[in-house]
């Protein structure tokens, strides 16, 4: 059997992380000879995908909470443990990677019992690599976790906990049947959507699909309906019978909410249509991906794209570039602001270009998140300092063990999106982990910083930042651009401005010499060819007002601002 059976995507296999949940059924004969069918769902662990985790938890009776024996409990472990507890699931603590030389299984088990309550001895010690303890784990599952309940005779209620797009079969939904049964040939209704569908095929995944004709209460499997539009079958929706269906859906349906927004532009303007097609295709398998065409004077045609978080953003960009061979430039990521208007209205702002004029603007609200950081205790001071410099407010602090501590903060999401995560990792030598969840909106002192070339604002470089950071951003950008923009026929002032107030300024001095001395022995051909070659090199220039800016300068300035 190959490794990473359930991480099927190339990118998952390469990066070694789960991006998309996957489901599998296995048959198990217990030590006492009883036969079991185990339905397992493997979810991503990263905070960006916690919506998927919570949907999957809603489809289960129990959860295995895995920690790495050499790392101990991490922030995501804790966040996901809380989600499982809230869903009322039975949790089996598992300490994995006990084969590692650096493993400290007892410490990890101690931390787990601190989080979940109970005895450290409850944790099952395993090595997925060597197979040690796997039998104990399977026994623990059949002994500890309750078998699925549900009423087979009641009207159908099945939870859609994931879906994917298959080129030949259309949308395939992964479902957990809670009540009743789901049978081929019947007509079912999506309760949140209010749409009826024909059940073409149902079955289970092992993980290859195996047609069974029907699924009954307690079972997990797949459903095909011939639907091609993935937007129709949303994760979290409840399926019921079209005729005499259930009255109550399974649990509240939430749209996954994008948290981070960024403009994506092809470096080659001719690639705009290809970018649209690529996004459309990606969306078939990722309904959380939202995008809208956008025009930038500096970067041309592109899209404003909403992502679940920074990892999601990075993955989408990488897939677009690799799977669709696109060369992209991305504007600085932004969060969703709310602009309160003088007339009492409110406007959603996904990027600096959406911000209303200061005349109409009363105040701006920004999203705050509850942040959880788990760090070795020696870094507490460092982390606190960093959080304070990023406008964080201290909340609770718990020791998981004498060496490791769990810190809670309230903090603007924009700060996390900016550079907080990298700073946290680098200042704790990679030991701290981070998780967050949306908390509230607060009025903040936010401003839009514009960058002007020769008095013309360059939309690609505008950004919304807290007033305290505006000056540093302006200065850094202006300085970078001064180095990137070639000298022109006239002096080019580069300015950073808040409204009409200039906060930073540098000048690209006019070019004063562009001539070569003489031609060798009347070699006009060579001279002409040299000039033509140089001219060719200038083709990728974009005009910003009367200033020629190489496309590379935009790309480089935006890339640097990511670092």
């Amino acid at each position, binding site marked *: 059997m190959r490794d990473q059976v359930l991480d099927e995507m190339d990118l998952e296999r390469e990066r070694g992380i789960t991006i998309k949940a996957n489901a599998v059924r296995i048959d198990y004969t217990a030590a006492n000879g009883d036969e079991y069918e185990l339905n397992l769902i493997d979810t991503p662990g990263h905070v960006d995908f916690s919506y998927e985790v919570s949907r999957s938890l809603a489809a289960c009776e129990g959860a295995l909470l895995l920690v790495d024996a050499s790392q101990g409990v991490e922030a995501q472990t804790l966040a996901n443990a809380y989600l499982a507890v809230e869903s009322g699931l039975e949790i089996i603590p598992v300490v994995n990677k006990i084969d590692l030389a650096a493993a400290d299984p007892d410490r990890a088990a101690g931390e787990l019992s601190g989080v979940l309550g109970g005895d450290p001895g409850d944790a099952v010690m395993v090595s997925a690599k060597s197979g040690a303890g796997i039998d104990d784990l399977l026994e623990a599952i059949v002994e500890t976790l309750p078998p699925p309940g549900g009423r087979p005779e009641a009207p159908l209620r099945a939870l859609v906990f994931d879906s994917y797009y298959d080129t030949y079969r259309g949308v395939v939904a992964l479902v957990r049947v809670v009540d009743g049964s789901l049978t081929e040939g019947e007509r079912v209704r999506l309760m949140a959507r209010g749409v009826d569908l024909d059940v073409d095929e149902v079955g289970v995944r092992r993980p290859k699909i195996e047609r069974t004709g029907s699924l009954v209460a307690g079972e997990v499997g797949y459903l095909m309906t011939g639907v091609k539009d993935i937007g129709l079958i949303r994760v979290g929706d409840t399926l019921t019978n079209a005729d005499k269906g259930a009255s109550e859906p399974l649990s509240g349906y939430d749209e996954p909410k994008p948290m981070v927004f960024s403009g994506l532009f092809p470096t080659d303007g001719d690639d705009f249509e290809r970018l649209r097609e690529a996004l459309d295709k990606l969306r078939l398998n990722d309904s959380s991906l939202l995008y809208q065409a956008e025009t930038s004077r500096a970067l041309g045609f592109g899209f404003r794209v909403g992502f679940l978080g920074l990892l999601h953003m990075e993955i989408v960009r990488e897939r677009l570039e690799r799977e669709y061979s696109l060369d992209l430039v991305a504007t600085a990521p932004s969060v969703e602001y709310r602009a309160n208007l003088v007339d009492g209205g409110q406007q959603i702002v996904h990027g600096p270009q959406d911000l209303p004029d200061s005349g109409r603007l009363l105040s701006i609200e920004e999203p705050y998140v509850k942040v959880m950081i788990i760090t070795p205790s020696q870094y507490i001071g460092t982390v606190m300092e960093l959080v304070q410099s990023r406008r964080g407010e201290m909340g609770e602090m718990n020791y998981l063990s004498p060496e490791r501590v769990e810190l809670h903060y309230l903090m603007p999401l924009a700060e996390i999106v900016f550079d907080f995560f990298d700073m946290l990792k680098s200042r704790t030598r990679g030991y701290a982990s981070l998780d967050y969840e949306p908390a509230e909106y607060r009025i903040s002192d936010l401003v839009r910083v514009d960058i002007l070339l020769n008095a013309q604002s360059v939309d690609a470089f505008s950004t919304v930042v807290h007033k305290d950071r505006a000056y540093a951003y302006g200065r850094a950008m202006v300085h970078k651009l001064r180095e990137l923009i070639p000298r022109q*026929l006239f002096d080019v002032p580069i300015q950073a401005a808040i409204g009409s107030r200039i906060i930073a300024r540098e000048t690209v001095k006019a070019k004063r*010499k*562009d001539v070569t001395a003489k031609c*060798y*022995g009347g070699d006009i051909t060579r001279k002409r060819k040299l*000039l033509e070659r140089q001219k060719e090199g200038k083709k990728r220039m974009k005009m910003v007002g009367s200033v020629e800016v190489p496309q590379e300068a935009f790309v480089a300035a935006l890339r640097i601002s990511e670092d």
Partner: protein
Amino acid sequence: MDPTDSTAEYPPDSPVLADLAASWKSAYIHVPFCARRCPYCDFAIVDESAGGAADHTTYIGAVAAEIGMAADFGPLDAVNFGGGTPSRLAPELLERVIGALEVQFGLSEGAEMSLEVNPEDWSDEYGRGLVDAGFTRVSIGAQSFDPAVLDALGRLHDPDAIARTVSGVRTVGISSVGIDLIFGHPAETAASWERSIAAAMALEVDHISTYSLTVEPGTALSREIRAGAPAPDDDVQADRYHRFCDVASGHGFVRYEVSNHARDGHVCRYNLSTWAHGEYVAFGLGAHDHRWGRRERNHRRLDRYLGAIEAGERPRVGVEHLDDFHQERDRLMLGLRLAAGTPLTPTAERFAASEAGRRFIQAGILEAGDGRLRIIEPMMTDAVAREALSVSWHDC
């Protein structure tokens, strides 16, 4: 009016003179021999420090033979020996070439006969040999009057040798003398450039060419810079250039091309004609010839060049045919280097009216008027020429 009368009649930067020069006929003879290669030079030369003195007689024999193979062109108005270092050749060898040119094409009355001379090669006896050979003009490779800069440029002479050569040229009775200067080497300071300018003025020569030091790929200079040596600075070079122009014009020099300044009556005809899109025949190693809408070039390697001549073939390696439009484009590109500018032909006018042209005009770099298109900020000539080359028949 013949070229001699025209140069006497019109100032060096006269549009009338420039237009007349477009119909002059010139010859260029390449003399590739150099005592050693200067660190900034990428010309086709034979470095005699490497393999000992080359066989000058064989080379000149080959050049004479090449001249004998050329199609008729009509009498020459200007002949220029460039290099390399023409003054490494004995006057008799130079005279042999002039003889061959005379036989093949004829020389017009009062034709300009010019050569480049390095100061270390000069002696009055050598000069008398030049007069006998028929030379009317000498251009001295002075480069600088600052010993430190001369050293950095790898030159073999000292400043005194320049003065000796100038007065020697006068003594033997050559009627026009010019010097070449190179400015903007990182070893040069503002003060040393000032002294070089003053020294050049004090010599009261007839013509001065000032070239900004350019870093050509593959030269020793470019390797040194890559290894961390200071590179020439464009702004410094622009300052030095303008300073020279100011002082020179105060001394009666008229700038007629980006790098060339002459007193009245002393414009270098070969030079002016080349930039005015005049025709020229060219002979010798790596030489380039321009006639009848064709640009042809010779082998750059001596063995190939000599081999071709020996085989009785013309030593050409390449030819470029230019249709009317492309000739017109060349005329524009070259004419922009002249202070007189280029006639405001429909092509030139289209360029002036183009977006790029308008930007140059607005920036005070280009000027269109009185039937001429001319650059008024010569240090930006390539920027303009680059755009001028991309005008098409269809541009408006």
